[in-house]
């Protein structure tokens, strides 16, 4: 609960809301100080993205003449921000509301939530992992908060964050070589062998997450925050395939105390491949009986025009040196699994971007019990307030 009355009478909730105000301000300060610019892009979109499993809020837009147009509230500002990269911006961020329907009203979800996305063109996924780690350390330092809290877990923010590939976590927690489980047949066998039921309609991704959510996810980011990178190519979404192994894709998520707080990509900038994937997603939406709309051709055109728009822009090294210093073992592992971020701009370092759930970030910094405690008048509050 976080209604005006809760904020007035409950000092703990009041403090959480005060911290929220400070954190949002510090996020802006951090990105401006790192040379990013803040953009504003539309909440209501004529051609929204195509994620098969997300539920969009439709909104009707009516002209003075009475002509009506069906728009959708954004689930993320992704397409719009990439269009700005195509227009010539190199480092851009947006902090604002996103909307996903058919979610829980509580726990770690609210249908209306605050997200920050930032993009670098050129850039690599190593760059934004660095950005994110620096951002959390900066906010922690400014607020004098050393410990992130989620449920009964406490995680020190100011240590070197862990970085592991999906292949490594499968080996560590499931004892299985993911290289040999990249087809639906192989993975089905593995799942059945471990006692899972596998249905005919289950996709590779479904089976993958059954094992991942039951056996791996709760271990992630317990000792220290953790980036998990290089997902099987089946789950590439809007990411490009890995340079070192095209069976995997440059997708990254970050876990803190078992809570997933962001999703980022080494961005796919190939317009034909992007269009193909979006058409596939649209077909899946259709199959699932969900509302469909055409792929945003303007987005495809933006990719086609080239990202980054200005190729003379030089890629950056890690912007700020770490206070703690990255472990040698980790450094050598990173060197093996990724390109050197300071390498000259190649065909595969064109753009990288990431979306971070701000409400969840605030939950971690304040130790709130539930997402409803960090959001003023959450959907749940509004539904219960006058009852």
């Amino acid at each position, binding site marked *: 609960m976080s209604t005006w009355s*809760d904020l007035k009478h409950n000092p703990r909730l009041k403090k959480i809301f005060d911290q929220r105000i400070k954190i949002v301000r510090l996020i802006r300060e951090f990105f401006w100080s790192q040379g990013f610019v803040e953009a504003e892009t539309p909440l209501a979109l004529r051609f929204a993205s195509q994620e098969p499993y997300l539920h969009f809020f439709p909104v009707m837009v009516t002209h003075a003449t009475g002509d009506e147009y069906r728009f959708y509230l954004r689930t993320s500002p992704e397409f719009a921000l990439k269009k700005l990269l195509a227009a010539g911006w190199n480092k851009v961020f947006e902090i604002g509301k996103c909307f996903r329907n058919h979610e829980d009203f509580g726990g770690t979800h609210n249908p209306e939530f605050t997200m920050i996305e930032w993009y670098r063109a050129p850039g690599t996924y190593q760059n934004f992992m660095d950005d994110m780690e620096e951002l959390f350390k900066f906010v922690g330092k400014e607020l004098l908060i050393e410990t992130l809290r989620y449920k009964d877990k406490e995680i020190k923010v100011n240590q070197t964050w862990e970085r592991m590939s999906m292949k490594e976590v499968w080996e560590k927690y499931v004892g299985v070589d993911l290289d040999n489980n990249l087809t639906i047949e192989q993975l089905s066998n593995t799942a059945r062998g471990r006692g899972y039921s596998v249905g005919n309609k289950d996709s590779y991704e479904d089976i993958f997450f059954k094992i991942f959510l039951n056996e791996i996810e709760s271990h992630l980011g317990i000792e220290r925050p953790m980036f998990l990178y290089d997902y099987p190519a089946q789950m590439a979404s809007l990411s490009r395939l890995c340079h070192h192994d095209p069976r995997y894709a440059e997708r990254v998520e970050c876990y803190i105390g078992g809570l997933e707080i962001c999703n980022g990509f080494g961005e796919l900038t190939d317009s034909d491949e992007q269009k193909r994937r979006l058409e596939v997603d649209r077909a899946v939406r259709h199959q699932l009986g969900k509302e469909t709309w055409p792929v945003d051709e303007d987005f495809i055109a933006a990719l086609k025009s080239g990202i980054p728009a200005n190729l003379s822009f030089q890629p950056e090294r890690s912007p700020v040196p770490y206070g703690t210093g990255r472990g040698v073992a980790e450094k050598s592992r990173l060197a093996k699994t990724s390109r050197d971020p300071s390498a000259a701009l190649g065909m595969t370092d064109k753009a990288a971007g990431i979306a971070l759930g701000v409400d969840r970030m605030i939950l971690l910094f304040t130790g709130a019990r539930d997402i409803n405690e960090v959001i003023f008048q959450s959907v749940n509050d509004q539904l219960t307030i006058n009852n």
Partner: protein
Amino acid sequence: MSTTSDIRKGAVIKHNNNLYVVVEFQHVNPGKGAAFTRTRMKDLASGKVIEITYKSGESVEIVEVQFQTMQYLYQTEGRYAFMNMNNYEQIEMDADSIGDDAKYLKEGLDVVVGLYEGRPVSIQLPKKVQYKVVEAPPAVRGDSAAGNVTKEIALDNGLKIQAPIFIKEGEEVLVNTETGEYSARA
């Protein structure tokens, strides 16, 4: 066969031939993918809590549980007694099955008891419960200036909570049973 959409707090699930009562559940959409239902549940035999995540829509074996409003009577030697006010039948539950909720119980409080084959397996408290304040130290001049906007008060069932300094002995207050915090004057 039931599916994950039938999972509720207090539902009893048969999993690998063991019976579990659902303590908590949550929907998760990993990486914008298909939905899953994460379920924390307690083994009815051993009391051990496990976490299982199902694909949403997957079939699960939910055994029938009867939910019955009952009135809390008293507690003796770690046994908690409740009465069905329709037929005056009485049941008892042990401290383990009630867990942390025990501290919110007070004589005459209506709770919803989940019964599996007549055996009580869970209770659900009202979201807010009204108590009488039995102890509230008077506010001291300078409290607000010192930043003390709350004080500890004791309620008629022995529960102690933090409340705003204006609350006085003899008043009735509402407590949020999910967080254990002061909610409002009743």
